[in-house]
């Protein structure tokens, strides 16, 4: 019985000795908030067959609220890509339903061009009439959009930008006639 007690204490000792290894994982991510980096259409009504175009435009040297010096995204992240994703929902009665006819959940990349701007131009043909909303992956609030630098290695800091867009209020709501 005594031996069992000693073995129990030994196992408990090893167990507890690992308790303090880490409180939490350290994640090499910096979250920032910058307004109006996504441009959505100004109109909210389209005709069937029209294209819905939106643009992500992020200067590599980006003015960051609260600081006098602008942030260099590429030198921080060592990445030429900012990633984001979106999907559509269609209104059916009073319910919003996931809608894939314009394309399923889509991951996109805004790529750093020679002018020093991360750019993505997306064009989607609206092939069916109805009431829709375009949803982006949310940033820090439901009204914001998340742009995330592609992380090649954990030794480089990843930047997650929470941004806004015109006409975006938990989604971009539009009608196709």
């Amino acid at each position: 019985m005594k031996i069992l007690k000693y073995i129990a204490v030994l196992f408990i000792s090893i167990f507890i000795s690992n308790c303090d290894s880490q409180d939490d994982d350290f994640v090499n991510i910096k979250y920032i908030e910058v307004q109006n980096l996504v441009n959505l259409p100004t109109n909210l009504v389209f005709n069937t067959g029209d294209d819905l175009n939106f643009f992500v435009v992020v200067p590599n040297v980006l003015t960051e609220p609260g600081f006098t010096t602008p942030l260099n995204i590429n030198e921080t992240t060592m990445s030429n890509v900012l990633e984001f994703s979106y999907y559509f929902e269609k209104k059916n009665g009073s319910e919003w339903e996931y809608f894939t006819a314009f394309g399923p959940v889509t991951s996109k990349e805004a790529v750093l061009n020679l002018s020093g701007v991360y750019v993505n131009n997306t064009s989607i043909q609206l092939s069916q009439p109805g009431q829709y909303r375009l949803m982006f992956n949310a940033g820090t609030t439901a009204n914001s959009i998340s742009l995330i630098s592609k992380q090649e290695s954990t030794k480089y800091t990843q930047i997650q930008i929470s941004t806004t867009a015109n006409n975006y209020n938990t989604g971009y709501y539009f009608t196709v006639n």
Partner: protein
Amino acid sequence: MKKFLTTLCFLSPMLFLAQEANNAEGSSFTAGNEIKWDVLGLITETKIQLTYEHQFLPKWSAGLSAATYQSNKDKDHFDTSTDKQLKNYDIIPYIRYHLSPNQNSYYFAEGSLGVNSGKYKHIERLDANNQAIYQLQQGEYTDLALGLAVGYKYILKEHFLGEILVGGGQNILNDDSPKYISRVAISIGYKF
């Protein structure tokens, strides 16, 4: 911390049972000094920990543990992993109350107030050429930890001893240090 408290709850009945068992035995008190070396820490964390302890009353002793962490594997891992802190050294003065009257085989409770130090990671905004970048930086932390532990000591042929210690503590001064630290050892030593 939950794990620590659970373990203390688990061990406490054993301690009282041991005390009851040893009450009848009794033995004479001899003031003495001990030097101990933590074998478990060396195996599990490449920790080199030496302890000096002085028993000044039949039921009371006090000591000082000093430990340094020497694992190159842990140091390399820290640079590339999501680990938040890397321990460097501990210096732990402590006082112990013996829960059993037997001087050669007894359970004890320990209170400590120790200094611990190491490295931590943080992201810093660095300005250069009128632009800024965020970059991972390493800093040094030093903190003071209040600790509690329980243990068992066995002394063989008046001089050779073995000891098991299980406990933990909480850092109280610095947000960059680990919130909780363990105080666990299986030591061998010499009493003189």
